[in-house]
């Protein structure tokens, strides 16, 4: 669902893809909710690889980045209880930066891609993702409780 929205919304809001990464938010949420590092990293790998398949870049760049994030988020979820909105925002911001760092390292180091990474834009995008993430986690929490 997150991938469908991520692929559809930029058709009308071109800046959406530059600042929002819904698959990443879903990866973080499920990884933290399951609190199992193996499940977290596998969830991240599957979502990331699927995201790679939708683009034209070599398959695996998003996969590697989201695998790392999935593992990190689930490991953090085991140790900390992240129910607070502020903590969730900070965690999402942090994982967004980790994701970007891994992505650009792999893209430049392994694939020899000429991607540019700007730290201010990365932080801004991280905050945007954090705010959207807090709202999304709240919705998903409600949905989880209902089910």
């Amino acid at each position, binding site marked *: 669902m997150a991938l469908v929205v991520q*692929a559809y919304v930029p058709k009308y809001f071109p800046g959406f893809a530059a600042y929002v990464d819904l698959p990443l938010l879903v990866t973080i949420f499920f990884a933290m909710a399951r609190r199992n590092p193996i499940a977290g990293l596998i969830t991240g790998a599957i979502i990331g690889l699927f995201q790679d*398949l939708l683009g*034209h870049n070599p398959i695996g760049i998003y996969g590697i980045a989201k695998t790392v994030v999935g593992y990190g988020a689930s490991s953090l979820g085991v140790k900390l209880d992240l129910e607070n909105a502020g903590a969730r925002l900070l965690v999402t911001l942090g994982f967004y930066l980790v994701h970007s760092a891994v992505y650009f390292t792999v893209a430049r180091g392994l694939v020899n891609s000429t991607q540019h990474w700007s730290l201010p834009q990365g932080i801004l995008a991280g905050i945007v993702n954090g705010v959207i993430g807090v709202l999304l986690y709240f919705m998903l929490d409600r949905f989880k409780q209902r089910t």
Partner: protein
Amino acid sequence: MESFLGRYRNLTILVFVLFLQVLGLAVQVKTGAGEKAETRLIRMWAATAITPFERAVVWVQTSTGNLWHNYFYLRGVRAENRQLKEQIEQMRLEQVRLTEDAAQARRLQTLLSFKEQFVSKTVAAQVIGTAGSDLSRMVYIDKGENSGIGPDMAVITSDGIVGKVLLAGPNESRVLLISDQTSGVGAILEKSRLQGVLRGTANGEVMLERVMSDEQVQTGETVLTSGGDQIFPKGLPVGTVTRVGNGKDLFLNIRIKPAANLAKLEEVLVLTEKQERQAVTEDHGRVRAADILAQRLPSVPDKPAETAAVAGTSASPSSTANAAPKPNSPVAGSAAGAVKSASGNPAAKPAGTSAPSPKTTSQASGVQKPKPESAQKPLIVEQKPAPVAPPADTPQPPQDNSPQ
């Protein structure tokens, strides 16, 4: 060893999963797979899995929009209709002028044994989604191999070029936009005729590369396709130059604003068939400006034959519209100064030629001997405001009726 793996089980699995993905990446980089056959199938599966949802969303949105705009929100439609009709009239006149230009160009191309490309078939498609990543500038369209779409076909809109088909599935295709880093389009500047290569940048801008820094490029100049990439036919609009600066390696850094709005694409055309053939001149019945103008004058009645004959005696036969329009004739009056005859045409020598259409003003001005249409001189209409026709009793200049 077993105790080590058991103790660091999670970390071991993480390393293993990462290793597998790095290995996969290395294989792709080594073989240059990218969009090639090795990953084509799995990418198509992914697209097939996701596009039905996007199609459904687009369908709901389009249906709702159509219902609203076609049945409820009709404000200003009459005024728009009137405006469009006026526009059609103007464009028909423009078409006559352009037809003459095109015929002349074809004649010259024939002389030069020039081969030209024709877009013979296009398929209209709707954009249903994007790659969802800012680093992969491509869109999905709702037509694929079943509609005759294949890889490396040009994708355009009415405004300009959009990109090329990267991968075609049965019912959907991926289109690589010209703003993507991996795209490349042969382009030419319209006025200076300088050629370069159009490329996208990491932040989605479009740049024209490979233009030497000692060349003069003006901001605002139009960029067209050069046809050198064998994908886009020559002469399609690409965009306009927005900034010119010095780049590296003695080349200019030219930023282009694409003519097509790549950020908000709705419908596109895929050029599924191109033909390259020798230019030939076709001389099938020309549409005369007088005919078109006459159709715009429904108030001018067809004169009876007797009246026409009388009028023919007073006005010289050579005063017909196709030879040299008189300022007092309705046609000449409506397009005086705008209609000019081609000089040196032997077909114009005999006096008394007539227009074939009963509504043409040459009949109204008294023409007795009809001539075949092929003998008529071509008229070129320039777009100028049509002056008001003078009264019918305006004296005419004397004409020489003697045959030459």
